[in-house]
């Protein structure tokens, strides 16, 4: 088809189909959807006016994708069956391509119609399963079903390349693949149509400047909103995206439908639950500099073994990024962001169920139905008390992968552990309640001590080896037998001297003595006398040896040899002065004395070894204790330690 100028069949106003692929044009004067057919123009009925959002896009914007220029020429606004809207922008390319730029919750997906190969059929809407990889799709990467649902054509603007019928409902399935691959199966026609593309950023498609575009958004006026139950004023942060809001004055849950509020029910917080520690409306600047506002907060609970556990979740909002979550559980905090389901792969089947994301393996921690117990603020979906999803948590501290699954949708998200100090800094608050146990993905912060802490031990071994030439090559400097004459009485010691010998400096000294004792003792006081300075270093060398037979078994204690170790002494000539007493004092005592240097004794090494091991071993013990506390709250505690 070609460019066509004509008049609107409804109001007669001039209309122009500028793109050859355009099927339907929304009349800018009367908002009739005008279709061009073989028999002329057809009025399909009035379409609602687009509910303006904070989207940076607008009709007429020009961008580039894969070197091809395009222009946004149409816009269809679709309503999700669970509430909420998303925009689909019709991109007309200069080379004739037709693309769709879908915009949902701050993310953008550019897709193109993709014909299916011959003899290949797409699965029916009824048979398609969440998490299933759709076979036969002409895509570089396998695509998994992320969501299935029914969309309603709510509003449109500009030119649309298909026969848009206002209010018409159509089934769809969203697909996701690795490397940001994205696809949609549109079941509005038979056979269904397949669109394949990828998640893009505005910079990637030459629309980066669109962020700075300002326009007079016809946003729902928050000033005009009042609670239909109590009449109190309501201030909505994201009125164009919110589907539910609670009234801060009367605690009513209200439905939001493009500015129209409807009273649903009065909410009561669960009993014995602490209030939210961060207020709805608070702004927080996170480590990457992004400033989010808390627009909603909810209490969720899970029942395990009959015991109900609660936690708080804060919905964060930033217009150009979309929604994020801040989870507060047992006074631990997690910043949570969405994850492409196709980037999560199941681990190798085994005793411990695992998944892999971004090259990291996560172990299953919990698998239980999570229930919404109470809400406060505004939400982008039709949240309800009692809303239940299957929640599965996998942990790899400090990260936690969470799967939330309903019959129609599966969402993966990645939580990153935040310390209280980080949350306090982000929100400018003080004295947040302290955590009282170990969180599922809380990192053990002393890992350094039981990993790198063993490096000094290794260094000690290396140093010990290199020190052997200095400490371990024993050198004998004296070996002499001396005879102590019989003592005059049992208390009067006898003394004698060795021959002089030389000691080197910086070498330890070992003095050994051997005496022929048998069931007796000898006590030697040995003085090492420096012949030049007359300095004396004294050691006591006791020798005792006892043996016998008792109850038919022989025993012995002690021995005829004994020694004493000294630290190094100044180099020089020395003499041993040996003064002795012994049990058989009436007899002489022949004693063999030996003086050695550079004796490899090992006590210094053992002392250093023990000192260096204390902290690594202590922290290893703490680590095991920490992991034990972490996993005791898990349904899969057999998963054990994470390392």
């Amino acid at each position, binding site marked *: 088809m070609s460019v066509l100028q004509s008049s609107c069949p409804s109001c007669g106003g001039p209309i122009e189909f500028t793109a050859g692929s355009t099927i339907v044009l929304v009349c800018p004067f009367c908002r009739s959807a005008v279709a061009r057919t073989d028999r002329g123009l057809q009025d399909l009925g009035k379409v609602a006016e687009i509910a303006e959002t904070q989207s940076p896009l607008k009709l007429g914007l020009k961008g580039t994708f894969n070197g091809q220029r395009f222009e946004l020429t149409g816009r269809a606004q679709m309503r999700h069956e669970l509430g909420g809207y998303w925009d689909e922008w019709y991109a007309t390319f200069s080379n004739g391509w037709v693309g769709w730029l879908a915009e949902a919750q701050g993310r953008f997906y550019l897709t193109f119609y993709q014909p299916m190969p011959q003899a290949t059929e797409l699965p029916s809407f009824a048979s398609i399963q969440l998490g299933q990889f759709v076979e036969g799709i002409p895509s570089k990467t396998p695509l998994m079903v992320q969501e299935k649902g029914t969309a309603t054509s709510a509003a449109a603007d500009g030119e649309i390349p298909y026969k848009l019928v206002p209010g018409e409902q159509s089934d769809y399935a969203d697909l996701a693949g690795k490397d940001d691959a994205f696809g949609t199966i549109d079941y509005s026609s038979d056979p269904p149509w397949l669109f394949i593309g990828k998640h893009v950023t505005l910079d990637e498609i030459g629309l980066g400047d669109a962020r700075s575009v300002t326009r007079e958004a016809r946003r729902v006026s928050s000033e005009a909103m009042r609670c239909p139950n109590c009449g109190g004023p309501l201030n909505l942060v994201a009125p164009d995206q919110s589907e539910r809001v609670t009234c801060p004055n009367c605690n009513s849950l209200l439905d939001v439908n493009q500015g129209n509020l409807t009273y649903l029910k009065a909410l009561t917080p669960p009993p014995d639950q602490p209030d939210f520690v961060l207020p709805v409306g608070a702004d927080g600047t996170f480590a990457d500099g992004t400033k989010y506002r808390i627009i909603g907060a909810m209490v969720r609970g899970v029942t395990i073994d009959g015991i109900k556990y609660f936690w708080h979740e804060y919905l964060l909002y930033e217009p150009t990024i979309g929604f994020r979550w801040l989870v507060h559980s047992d006074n631990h905090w997690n910043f949570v962001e969405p994850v492409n389901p196709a980037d999560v792969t199941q681990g190798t089947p085994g005793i411990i169920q695992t998944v892999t994301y971004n090259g990291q393996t996560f172990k299953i921690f919990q698998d239980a139905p999570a229930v919404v117990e109470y809400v406060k603020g505004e939400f982008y979906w039709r949240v309800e008390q009692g809303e239940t999803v299957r929640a599965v948590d996998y942990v790899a501290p400090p990260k936690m992968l969470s799967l939330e699954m309903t019959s129609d949708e599966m969402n993966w998200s990645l939580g990153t552990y935040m310390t209280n100090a980080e949350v306090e800094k982000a929100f400018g608050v003080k004295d947040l309640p302290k955590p009282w146990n170990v969180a599922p993905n809380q990192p053990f912060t002393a890992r350094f001590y039981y990993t790198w802490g063993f490096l*000094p031990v290794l260094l000690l071994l290396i*140093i010990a080896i290199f020190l052997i030439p200095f400490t371990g090559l024993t050198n004998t400097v004296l070996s002499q037998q001396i005879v102590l004459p019989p003592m005059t009485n049992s208390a009067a010691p006898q003394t004698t001297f060795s021959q002089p010998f030389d000691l080197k400096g*910086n070498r*330890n000294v070992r003095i050994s003595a051997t005496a022929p004792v048998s069931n007796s*003792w000898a006590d030697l006081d040995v003085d090492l006398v420096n012949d030049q300075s007359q300095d004396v270093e004294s*050691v*006591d060398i006791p020798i005792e040896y006892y043996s016998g037979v008792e109850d038919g078994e022989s025993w012995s204690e002690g021995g005829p040899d004994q020694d004493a170790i000294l*630290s190094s*002494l100044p180099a020089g000539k020395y003499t041993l002065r040996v003064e002795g007493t012994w*049990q058989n004092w009436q007899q002489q005592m022949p004693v063999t004395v030996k003086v050695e240097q550079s004796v490899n004794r090992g006590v210094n090494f053992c002392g250093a070894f023990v000192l260096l091991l204390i902290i690594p071993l202590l922290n290893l013990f703490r680590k095991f204790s920490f992991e034990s506390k972490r996993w005791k709250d898990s349904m899969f505690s057999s998963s054990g330690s994470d390392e």
Partner: protein
Amino acid sequence: MFKKSLYIGFAVAVLIGYMAAGWFGWEVANSGSRSRLGMPFIYNGFHGGK
């Protein structure tokens, strides 16, 4: 970070002490009355016979 620095300082001190003891012939546990470390760390003297 402070604790890590403290631990690294402690480990370096132990290693340097061990090297110095090896080089200068110091024995942490020795029987000398006036060891080069100033006093015997462990005195294994005789305390009387049977």
